[in-house]
């Protein structure tokens, strides 16, 4: 039995990505970000989300893609997983679609320059449209940050 899954679609360097809708708290327009010193470059800082301070990371930087200027379309997707709340800066976010579980395939080794471990699968939406589903637990894995910090020291 194929199950239906709702997915938030966002773009990053002209590729389309998806995060399950129940992991997403809200999607915000860009707000001023306060820089936090001595953090990895992709950690952009913290924002005030209705009284709660939330760390924000640039997803392009997290995946080792070239970071770009933020535009009118840039969005911060606030996700909650692993007991963590983090904002992802993405190029744009504008769609929610249904994905059937039998349309999801295991990820190939490298997708759009992103390491396979960050990806839980690739969903085929139509003949010409592929959606890369993120493995949130890996994306939010802090051990890499800690390594980076120690390297910085």
């Amino acid at each position, binding site marked *: 039995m194929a199950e239906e899954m709702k997915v938030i679609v966002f773009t990053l360097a002209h590729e389309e990505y998806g995060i399950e809708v129940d992991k997403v708290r809200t999607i915000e327009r860009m707000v001023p970000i*306060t820089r936090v010193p001595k953090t990895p470059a992709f950690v952009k800082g*913290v924002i005030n989300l209705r009284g709660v*301070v939330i760390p924000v990371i640039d997803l392009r930087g997290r995946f080792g893609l070239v970071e770009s200027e933020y535009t009118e379309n840039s969005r911060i997707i606030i996700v909650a997983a692993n007991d963590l709340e983090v904002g992802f800066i993405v190029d744009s976010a504008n769609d929610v679609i249904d994905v059937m579980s039998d349309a999801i395939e295991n990820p190939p080794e490298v997708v759009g320059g992103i390491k396979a471990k960050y990806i839980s699968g690739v969903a085929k939406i139509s003949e010409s449209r592929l959606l890369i589903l993120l493995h949130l637990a890996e994306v939010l894995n802090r051990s890499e940050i800690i390594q980076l910090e120690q390297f910085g020291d």
Partner: protein
Amino acid sequence: MEMNQYMSMFIDESNDHLQALNENMLRLEQTPEDIGIVQVIFRSAHTLKGMSATMGFEDLASLTHEMENVLDLVRNEKLSMNGHIFDTLFKCLDALEAMVQDVINGGTGKGDVDDLVQRLKAIVKGDVGGDASISSDADQDLPASLILDQYQMSILGQSIEAGHLAYYIEVKVRDDCLLKAARAYMVFDVLERNGEVVKSYPSVQEIEQEQFDRSFSVYYITQTPGETLQDQLSRVSEIESVTMNAVDKASLEEMEKARGASDQKAAVKETAAAAAPAIPNAPAAPAAPAADKPAARTAPAAASSGGAAPRTIRVDIERLDSLMNLFSEMLIDRVRLEQLASEIRRNDLSETVEHMARVSADLQNIVLKLRMVPVESVFNRFPRMVRDLAKSLDKKVDLVIVGAETELDRTVIDEIGDPLVHLIRNSVDHGVESIADRVGAGKSETGTVVLRAFHSGNHVFIEIEDDGKGINRPKVLETAIKRGVVTPEDAKKLSDDEINMLLFAPGFSTADVVSDISGRGVGLDVVKSKITSLGGNVTVQSEPGSGTKFSIQLPLTLSIIAAMLIKLGSEKYAFPLSSIVETGALKRTDIRTLHGNRMVDYRQSIIPVISLAELVESPDYRDDEETETEMLVIRKGDKLAAILVDEFIGQSEIVLKPLGKYLSGHRSVVSGATILGDGQVALIVDPNTIIK
């Protein structure tokens, strides 16, 4: 009956009573003659028994019941406390704690208490570990708990003389009996129709509240022959057995002899006159269930709370959290309103905002205090622990607690217990020497462990200091090298303090013999990681031969603090006001370089100069371009440092917010964040990380 809703109340109150029992037992151990303390202990045990029975925790109830029997003898001065009884009672407390813990963890609260129950029963029977002081029992195998006072004794004596029959009756209720109290009431009803109950055990009130196991016993005077009575009693349903023993003059005399003779004679004379009118009054005492019940119920409750108990209510901590969150949102709006009012410059608006500011300042104090709990609630379990430890290690150790009233956020309190247990165990086990070694070293036999808590700046410090042998640094080094914690080359470069800190390295234990108390080698690194996860820090100082001091620094989390806001180029930072000594200006030319470190003269001393811009890697401000910069002098302990900043904004009350879990564990100069009146996030600088 639906019990779940009472469960949390039961757990809270059981913990309170267990704590009270522990504390009072320790006090009693110091002053075993003080019957007043025994009374308090008895009441706690009694309340605990009632609560457990009501909630259906049979093992808890039966153990407390037996403890109560022992305590009852003590409080009536029929038994004097000794080491054996103390040890047994302490073991009982441990068993009770284990059972309550089981209940908390969702278990059934069952525990194997048979052994302890037997030991308590033995104590009641007079086996008090050698120095027996209990009165020997009368003929028949009467339970010692059913000892008659002089008054009741004389009633019995006179009744027998007057030709009445006196019986000692023991009634056993059937195991599967559902309404024990009701059956007991029926038994009493039969008894009262035929004669008078002189004394019952447990008391009539307790029987009415079902606070008895399966049997109860009475002394009884009647004119009805024994067989008739036995027949009538057996007809009450769900009664398993009725045992009747006739009490005659001879057995009474023997009982009297057993109760010390001196006060006896006088008492008999005195009560002789009172006895006659007393007999008709006696029926009023037993069973008048409806009327007596409320009185009986309130008695233990009032007794357990004691005279000057603080009036408190229990509140779910989550409600306090949401109250705190709401309040901090309001505080942000208040700051915003103050800004607007100062821009709009309308008198009535400014006045209203000012008034609101004052009210919210008061409100803030209250909200903050709600979450604060004295560390006492953690500390108070340690005297008992140290006592047991010292005893099992054959050492003499005094635990001195200083600053138990120091308040700390509830969430921190909940977490800090285990690390402290570990450090104190460590001090008693490894720190304080054996008695022989202490005497040999010219110290007093009794070692001292000081547990100290105090506020300093934005932190609470908890110190554990012993006057033992100190850390054996060569041995620590040797072990660390052996275990591969450091390389022999690195080891040579380590300072004394760094060697001490090796104790906190994972997989490290110096004890030659691994004892069950500490020294499993998993301890201190766990302590360190726990404290670090609380945003705190632990350090150790040690002087060979004279002692070791562990110092834990903890943040006052989730609170509102007064802070100095400063600007650094386009960024804003906050410094806790509590760590600021002074603000001022500093000429670039006054900064001197000593050994490559920048220093400045400050009030007859030379203190280091630290550039905040360099520290936080400011993207758009560099202070070496300025000829004169603003300076903050901050303090940590007795160390000072001057921090160079761009510009002061001013003082403000700020709400401490965590940086978010994603960035926690991140080692940096920033301890948290706050939201300013304009909605922007400003980072809070932690002065403790700046001054090393």
